[in-house]
């Protein structure tokens, strides 16, 4: 899609790389600086404690990002339309509580309780969306009210029983504790990812060529596929060193990829971006703004519920929610650090993954070094800032671009 056809193969690659860099640095998918920041972060932690790069730690990391990561993916949707959802923390806690109460206390089968919990999240999201889209109450306020109200409901649900232990052999517990021990699983996933990318790119190239439109040279496609494959296989290798591919990671990657396709390859996704680029313009183009708004908040509620179940799965118990906004802040921070714009219209689901990696790496590194909490706060803040400054500065050093 990027490159335009040219003649000499050498120049072609050079130009393709140049254009890729330009694309990257133009912010739409400007994740390169964050990746660099992440690598730097890892290097520092590994230098301070040799266990950081141990397969065990990296495997844990890959599972730990999933819960909050799913929530952050939902937040990406909301940020894309230029709004914010403060309720995700409460909704995730509520979904976990609903599941625990239905399954453990009321004895419903796990799958049914799980479906109801996720549906509850979706419903709540839709409710927020309704108030937002129908009455024009700012999403910030609606979801702030939601934050309080759903917190109260969760307290009420758990009021009788207090903390509830989940069945540690059950479906939900398995979400984060199951690993595909067969090494073929991890390698297979890596191979599949690279193959899908390669085939999609080739198909696009073929169609463009047929339509006599500029197309991406084969060599460039090969280079990109190679890069993706290298990263994927390296990750698979590390995971196989510990317990194999975690189910949680598989679900996360598949969901993120699916939602990425939804956002960037379907009419629905196009409308989400359009809303972020100008509500009035989108409205005049016939986009049903209210409907898109409701749907986006529904997605965010659903993802929050899913994320809540993963978070509960990780500690196989569901307790009273803390009123702290830490979870919300982490989710929003992940999306923003990954490159999603707070002002709407720019970002991808993969941003959430990248951002979560940064955040969880910091927190895991801190735990590894057992830093005291006072210092821990300061360091987390400092590292966060450093990562984003790096990102912003490298974007800045590109030409500043105004508007005609």
């Amino acid at each position, binding site marked *: *899609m990027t490159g335009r056809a040219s003649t000499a193969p050498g120049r072609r690659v050079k130009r393709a790389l140049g254009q890729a860099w330009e694309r990257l640095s133009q912010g739409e998918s400007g994740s390169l600086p964050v990746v660099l920041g992440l690598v730097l972060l890892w290097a520092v932690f590994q230098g301070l404690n040799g266990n950081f790069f141990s397969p065990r730690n990296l495997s844990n990391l890959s599972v730990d990002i999933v819960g909050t990561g799913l929530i952050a993916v939902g937040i990406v949707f909301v940020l894309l339309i230029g709004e914010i959802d403060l309720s995700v923390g409460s909704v995730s806690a509520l979904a976990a509580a609903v599941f625990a109460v239905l399954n453990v206390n009321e004895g419903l089968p796990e799958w049914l309780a799980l479906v109801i919990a996720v549906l509850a999240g979706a419903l709540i999201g839709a409710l927020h969306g309704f108030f937002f889209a129908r009455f024009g109450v700012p999403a910030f306020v609606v979801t702030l009210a939601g934050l309080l109200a759903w917190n109260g409901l969760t307290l009420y649900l758990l009021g009788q029983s207090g903390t509830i232990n989940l069945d540690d052999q059950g479906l939900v517990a398995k979400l984060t504790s199951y690993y595909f021990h067969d090494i073929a699983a991890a390698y297979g996933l890596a191979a599949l990812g690279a193959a899908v990318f390669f085939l999609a790119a080739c198909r696009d190239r073929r169609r463009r060529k047929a339509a006599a439109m500029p197309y991406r040279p084969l060599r460039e496609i090969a280079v990109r596929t190679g890069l993706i494959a290298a990263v994927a296989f390296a990750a698979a290798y590390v995971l196989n060193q510990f317990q194999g591919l975690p189910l949680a990671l598989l679900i996360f990657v598949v969901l993120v990829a699916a939602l990425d396709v939804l956002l960037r390859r379907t009419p629905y996704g196009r409308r989400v971006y*359009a809303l972020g680029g*100008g509500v009035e313009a989108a*409205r005049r183009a016939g986009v049903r703004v209210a409907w898109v708004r409701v749907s986006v908040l529904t997605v965010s509620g659903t993802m929050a519920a899913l994320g809540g179940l993963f978070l509960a799965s990780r500690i196989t118990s569901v307790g009273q929610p803390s009123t702290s906004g830490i979870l919300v802040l982490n989710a929003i921070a992940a999306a923003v650090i990954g490159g999603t714009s707070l002002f709407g219209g720019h970002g991808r689901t993969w941003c959430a993954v990248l951002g979560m990696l940064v955040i969880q790496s910091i927190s895991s590194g801190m735990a590894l070094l057992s830093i005291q909490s006072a210092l821990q706060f300061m360091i987390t803040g400092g590292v966060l800032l450093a990562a984003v400054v790096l990102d912003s500065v490298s974007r800045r050093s590109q030409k500043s671009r105004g508007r*005609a």
Partner: protein
Amino acid sequence: MSDPPLLALRGVSKRFGAVHALDDVELEIHTGEVVALLGDNGAGKSTLVKVIAGVDPADRGVMEWDGRAVQVKRPHDAQALGIATVYQDLALCENLDVVGNVFLGREVRRVGILDEVEMERRTLGLLAALSIRVPDVRLPVATLSGGQRQTVAISRSLLGEPRLLLLDEPTASLGVEQTAQVLDLVERLRDRGLGVLLISHNMGDVKAVADHAAVLRLGRNNGFFDVTTTSQEQIISSITGATSHARRPPRTGEAGP
């Protein structure tokens, strides 16, 4: 000609706070006819366009489509009738690329997935027809020049099969050649049986393509002219208010090319 007009407005009024932007306005557009909507700055032309397009519905008044009264409350309704619009402020999504903007709301899909190749191909075709160079149809429109943006907006309006085209100063920032292309296009569309409402401050352009000219002044009708038989001075004096024409556009039956 006894056909009902494609679009007829009867007694349309609209207020913004203390400002009467439209006051009991009447207008008719027939198929195969180009009506120029003229008026001074702030006369209410864009407001009228937004009323017709459903962006900002009128406070009072009736809108008839093919002779039947219709309710246009949302842009969607107008599109469903076959009304396509180029707004004065263009209304493009800054973050989407040219292709995305042209096809917004009318994406081409293959098994539910966007067919980017097809959309890009058709976009290139539309832009070529308007003889404007856009450096890359995959750049966000925020980076385009004023004229390039205007062309994107015009291309947008040609998608689908509109029956009525509302053009609010479509050539304001176009070059000489591009302006000629757009005027050409308007004539071709008229010949294909579309109705066109053209807003312009350029008398030359109006003379060149319009059949009739409706003049607004301070939100009221201030004359309806047959462009071929009326002198430019007469129209201008009606615009600037040197003469006051209480005359309204003729009702169906009187009018016609």
